């Protein structure tokens, strides 16, 4: 009899604990889960900077302040390396919005990833968006030398031509000597 009572008490206690934990969990669920939504323009010309806007909210839709959002572009490069290339990070403001100005240098469709890594009170979350970059022109141009109007190789050609022309003239004087009529 005593044993049955003991088990009952234990079960009741366990139930109470589980119940209260469950209640507590149910109560917290809204703030621990996070949701990140990334807003980007769908298309932009190459060479222009775009505004990447990531909105961070908790489960109940409240904005999370001071959360660090890291932005990446999913890409590949030489030797088969591929993956996420970090392009910058920003902290969310009072409205839970983090903004990064980024100038995409690849053309075509690019995939932007925003990530919230989570902290003590909030879980991680991420969002992906695509931008198509339109344009096919060079962005990086090397420039060397000084440009002065009218200065060029033609000056050298002219000087050389003048000298060699004068040689020609002198040679023509020699030919004149050779063909001079005899003196009377």
């Amino acid at each position, binding site marked *: 009899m005593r044993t049955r009572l003991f088990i009952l008490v234990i079960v009741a206690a366990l139930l109470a604990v589980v119940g209260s934990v469950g209640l507590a969990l149910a109560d917290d669920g809204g703030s621990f889960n996070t949701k990140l939504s990334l807003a980007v323009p769908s298309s932009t010309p190459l060479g222009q900077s775009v505004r990447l806007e990531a909105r961070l909210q908790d489960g109940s839709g409240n904005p999370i302040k001071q959360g660090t959002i890291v932005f990446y572009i999913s890409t590949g490069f030489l030797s088969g390396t591929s993956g996420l290339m970090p392009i910058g990070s920003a902290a969310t403001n009072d409205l839970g919005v983090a903004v990064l100005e980024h100038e995409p240098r690849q053309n075509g469709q690019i995939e932007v990833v925003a990530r919230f890594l989570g902290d003590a009170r909030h879980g991680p979350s991420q969002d992906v968006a695509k931008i198509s970059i339109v344009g096919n022109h060079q962005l990086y141009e090397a420039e060397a030398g000084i440009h002065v109007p009218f200065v060029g190789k033609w000056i*050298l050609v002219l000087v*050389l031509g003048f*000298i*060699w022309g004068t040689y020609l003239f002198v040679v023509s*004087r*020699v030919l004149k000597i050779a063909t*001079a009529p*005899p003196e009377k």
Partner: protein
Amino acid sequence: MNEALERLERTVLHPLTHTTMTYRIVVLALAAVAGWGLYAFSIQMRNGLVVTGMRDYILWGLYISNFVFFIGISHAGTLISAILRVTKAEWRVSITRMAEFITVVALTVGGVFPIIDMGRPDRVPSILWFGRFQSPIVWDILAISTYLTGSAIYLFLPLIEDLAICRDKLPKTLSPWRRLFYRVLSVGWRGTDSQKKSLFTAMGIMAILIIPIAVSVHTVVSFIFAMTLRSGWNSTVYGIYFVAGAIFSGIATIIIVMAILRRAFHLEEYITSKQFVYLGYMLGAFVLIMAYFNLLEFLVPGYKNEEGEGFLLQSMLAGKYAWMYWAYIVAGLGIPAFIILNPRTRNVKGLVIASILVNIAMWLERFLVVVPALDVPLLPREAVTYVPTWVEWSIIAGAFAEFSLIIAVFAKLFPVISIWEVKEQMEQKEHVAAEAETSPATTHGFGERAKTSPFGT
């Protein structure tokens, strides 16, 4: 007077028909040395530049410094001759021919050095197909070929009258090819007024034109160094510094060649101590100019003591290359200055000694331009030393022999003194003297220039 004129022709034309044993021996010896140089070059052609002491850090050596040296002594000639002609210095007439010889020969010999220095001499013609205007080497090629052509024309023009004298006065026993040679080259000169007018026009133009060309040539030679970012070479003073050094060693070379030919061909009557002393004065002036440039070259970077410049100065003034540098200062500037300033040593013998010293010193100076600057480390690398090999020395010796050889051959083919110019001067002096006798009021010095001057009256 007629007797003096005849003696002039006899003396100057004598070497063209008579060859002494000494001359033959000298020519043979020179040819042997030149041949040895050619052999050394063939070894270099077969094995590559690995047979030289040059390596990746000190990548130029004797060849390039001799290129600068020979182009330098080429300035002797034409530039000095042209300056003296334009300024109507009378004492020049008996020495201009030799000076002009030196120019043409030194350019021919010096111009070969960059080709000897090349890793692929077989590809020289590709400069014609692929040449780029932006390269200082192409500037060198353009400048040197223009200068060589100009100097050859400038040497040839005053030769025409003398070649006509050779054609007319040399004995009939001369070999037929020599006779043809003089007949063709004297281009039918008969001394008519229209011929004289054409000749003087041509000479007047060339004498003026050749001066800026000569200046440009050595400026451009300095550009293969000055157009780099290396300490010592990265300098704006280099162009004019090279030109001054060129004229300096050029004058010294004329004095030496003059002394040798005067001795060999008995020309004491025409090349007197006056010519030596006047050239000595010019040499003295250039001692000062060179000293000034040396001061500029070292004081300006030395004061600021930028890293590489400081390293270079240290090695030049008190380090690895100090013995050469101070030898240059003492033997090239100090002793010659003393010889020229002291009236007791200012004579033919003294000036020849001074000139030899100047040329040795200038040769060292050219070496000091090329090698120590390359010895300045651009990276923290191990120290290296450039030691020229026997191949390099042999090729250099061969070049000097070839230079002397061509001069010797020239001296057998052409009169080494401009006969017609000396003759005209003698006639004028007589004329002036005669006039002075009849009308003592006539002042000296005006009339005597007028008629012979290529610049007209």
